[in-house]
């Protein structure tokens, strides 16, 4: 009886104490030794999408440093989930519930949806009053969209945030496999100006001949990889003012036809829809198309000699993407001035340099010093290939939102149909007949 009483008492005490302990405010960055902000201090929460724990650690240390530099502000860094953990879906739900952070990162394609629905703040008025701030410090492609005013349809009339970083596609090379196949080294071909679609196909074919489970080329199934073939043929997803589908133009069709050849006719590519990264890391793929974000994984897991090379030249050039995402300010933040200051501090050359050192990102500031510094973050030895991809001369197409329609809807129409083409389930003619009829619906929604 006595024991039962004591056990019950402990249970009651524990429950009550838990409830009481639960009354304490949410802890700041370091839970073990929470820093109690002074009474006049404000707390700013910010979030970005990290790719791995190393990035979380760097962002945490960046947050701690900026916290010290921002007087009267306590920063709380919240690492968001990865892309596969539905970072955007969670964020949108939090915005709907009114619990989203003050500053957060979103991909470039989401800017329009967030801006037109009033979810993020137009920072232009504050930026105009900020000494030394120039939008020209950042790459022009992303800034076109970041300063786009959907009401007037003109760029330069708003500021939705600042780009965190940029990236571009390269081909990750398994040099051992390429040498074994007796194919030319793509890096040498690129240096000699002979790295074009034909040379690419030749290397792919030779590597594929090494075995039934070996492939010359691999890429993952999303809009980025197939977009470059369309771009490099002179085509694009949209017309010039991004108000209609352009996936059925002769140039776009030429690019897609070449890519289909890799998958369906020549069968030199990892089947479309299969994740190409595992077979590449397992040494079964000669050339793996991906962005800078694949570098840390390759550094850690590749047990072969590897490097990178820029994408091959198509009829109209390299046709690369300029990928980017941006820090934006929650429209419902209670501290817009401080949030704007944080956005600026997160995009200084110094902060970007620290994050670039991990190998995942390229700084979004147009700064020779930042680029020179980026070149030192090896392997891969040929970091220049990334910079060649984003150079103005390569005329990269900036990833961007769809101000005149819904990008998620457009993507959900385009993706499955192109997947059918690259899987050999739909002919190019069938695709040509229906793609824009369907995709244009995304502009009327």
């Amino acid at each position, binding site marked *: 009886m006595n024991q039962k009483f004591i056990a019950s008492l402990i249970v009651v005490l524990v429950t009550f104490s*838990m409830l009481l302990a639960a009354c304490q405010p949410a802890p700041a960055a370091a*839970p073990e030794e929470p820093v109690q902000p002074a009474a006049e201090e404000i707390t700013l929460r910010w979030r970005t999408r990290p790719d791995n724990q190393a990035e979380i650690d760097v962002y945490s240390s960046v947050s701690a440093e900026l916290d010290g530099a921002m007087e009267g502000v306590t920063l709380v860094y919240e690492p968001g989930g990865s892309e596969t953990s539905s970072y*955007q*879906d969670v964020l949108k739900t939090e915005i709907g519930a009114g619990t989203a952070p003050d500053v957060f990162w979103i991909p470039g394609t989401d800017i329009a949806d967030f801006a037109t629905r009033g979810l993020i703040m137009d920072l232009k008025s504050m930026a105009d009053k900020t000494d030394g701030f120039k939008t020209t410090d950042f790459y022009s492609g992303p800034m076109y969209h970041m300063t786009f005013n959907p009401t007037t349809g003109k760029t330069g009339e708003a500021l939705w945030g600042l780009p965190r970083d940029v990236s571009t596609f390269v081909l990750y090379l398994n040099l051992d496999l390429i040498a074994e196949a007796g194919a030319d080294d793509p890096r040498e071909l690129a240096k000699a100006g002979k790295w074009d679609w034909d040379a690419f196909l030749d290397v792919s074919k030779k590597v594929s001949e090494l075995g039934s*489970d070996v492939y010359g080329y691999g890429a*993952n199934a999303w809009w980025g990889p197939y977009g470059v073939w369309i771009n490099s043929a002179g085509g694009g997803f949209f017309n010039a003012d991004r108000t209609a589908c352009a996936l059925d133009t002769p140039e776009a069709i030429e690019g897609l036809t070449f890519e289909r050849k890799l998958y369906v006719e020549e069968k030199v590519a990892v089947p479309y*829809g*299969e994740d190409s990264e595992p077979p590449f890391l397992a040494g079964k793929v000669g050339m793996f198309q991906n962005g800078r974000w694949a570098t840390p994984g390759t550094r850690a897991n590749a047990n072969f000699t590897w490097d990178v090379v820029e994408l091959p030249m198509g009829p109209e050039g390299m046709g690369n993407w300029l990928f980017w995402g941006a820090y934006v300010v929650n429209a419902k933040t209670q501290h817009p001035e401080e949030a704007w200051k944080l956005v600026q501090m997160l995009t200084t050359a110094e902060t970007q340099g620290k994050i670039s050192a991990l190998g995942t990102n390229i700084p979004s500031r147009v700064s020779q010093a930042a680029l020179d510094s980026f070149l030192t973050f090896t392997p891969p030895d040929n970091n220049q290939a990334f910079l060649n991809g984003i150079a103005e001369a390569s005329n990269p197409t900036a990833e961007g939102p769809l101000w005149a329609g819904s990008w998620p809807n457009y993507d*959900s129409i385009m993706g499955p149909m192109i997947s059918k083409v690259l899987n050999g*389930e739909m002919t190019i003619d069938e695709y040509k007949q229906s793609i824009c009829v369907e995709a244009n619906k995304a502009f009327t929604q």
Partner: protein
Amino acid sequence: MHKDAESTNITRIETFINIVTGWHFFLSFAGLILLFFIIFKQLFSNLPSWLMFIGTISIIFLVGTSFFAGIQLRKRTRVGRTISLVINYLGFIFSFIALLQVLGVFLGVDALAKTFGSGIGWLAGVLAGYLIHAAGDQFHFRIQIEELFRKIGKYIALVFFTIFLFRVGLIKALIYLGKQIIIPTNLMIAFLVILFGIAIWLMWREETGIYLHRNNAQTEALEGYLFLSPNLLGFLIFFAFPLVFSFYISLTDWDAFGNSNFIGLANYLTIFRLNLKPLASATQNFIQVMDGSIYSELLRFNLFGKYFVLGAADARFWISLRNTLVFCIVTVPLSAIPALLLSNILNSKIPGMKIFRAIYFLPSIAAVVGISLIWQWLYNATIGYINYFITLGLQFINSIFATSYPIALIRWLSESRTALLAIIIVSAWQTMGFNTVLFMAGLQNIPKELYEAATVDGAGRWAKFWKITLPLLAPTTFFVITTTTIQALQVFEQVFIMTNPPGSPGTSTLTIVLYLYQNGFQRFQQGYGAAIAWVLFIVIFAVTLLQFRSQRRTGAYDV
């Protein structure tokens, strides 16, 4: 003397009832003033319209019932007591939840999850104290030692528990609570909680009940509903309300961020907007016969030598519905029939059978995400184990039998023909274990005498299975089929994790729940997503109804 005491008691009860009566009139009056301010948009004007609507209805209800309770209490009826108890109980619960919210307890629970880890080690000390205390029982024969153990154990537990509380932030919590509670609004809510509490106490008292002629039926009903109330309130708030609310959402173009217009049945019309047109030839482009800016081609078919094309305003909805139905039709038998056979095997009394039961049950308790990720790797066409073993097997057969079967890698998840099948295999495999346990439970209920009698009659194993096991398992089979069907119609996680992008290749694995998720959470179309959810609800309801009707016809539950 006795009469005096009784008179004093009655006066006290009267006073209590009068206080509660006044409280109810006050509540009605306060509610009316609140309504006035809401109607003239002086208060809560920034709230969404649906919340304003619900709030207004609730306040009208409160004003009406509270006034009625006041009138009835003035008449000294037991109905007044019942209504008063219900109103005050609900008021107490909701104001208490509001108090917890404004004090930050719910956010604090999140915080506790983070700080709990730093103190959890000290709980081991509490456990040690308890064990020492309990160890005293071993010394019944020496009472002093027993007492000593108990004392030491008690103090150790107390010391460690105090340290634990410090570590998880009890002191900080107390300080924070103190600061929060003195904020005027919070103080007012706390006061309201106390007032509701007092009103409940005044009405619940035995003497008040007797004075107001309570009877046993009323007392039992009140006590019954009191015990039922946590579940009932939970059901109403977290199930019934969202259900009704989602229907309202389906009549709007809400994007989840406050932008909403009432559009009536427009979402449902878009879903069901179909167009059937004849074609001049089998290959004629569908946009030549219908407006391509509205419709997408869904299906073309030949009927009596004539070609037709069926267009849909939302073809992806119909594709997802078809995929879901195919998934359901194949998955249910695949997870039920093997489970039935397996349960018969596992029901035998062979040594080590319990281990096998556990093994088969494991997939059903494992996390779907983890399982899906593992299967995704197994299915990888180039480096996955499934294709690896298929290749090894074919190579072995070719070498032994001098055959030349082609070694082609199956693209499990990247080809339209196989992707849905791959998902079906995983789902059936995962559900099978749970169904097996259900069948085994059903088998335990079959009387052994029936089998003995059948054996005496010369029935073989097969005959016993068909004539005894299967018919007597009918109730379990019905339950298994119904629950597995409902589960299959709601398939989401496996597709979401295993296919990239979800629903690919093409739209071959796009299921209806995935499609509603994409609309609601990725395309900012919560209203449309809610409409799809309601259509799915009707489909599930119809299928379940059919199953119940078929069960009634066969009399499965009458066994």
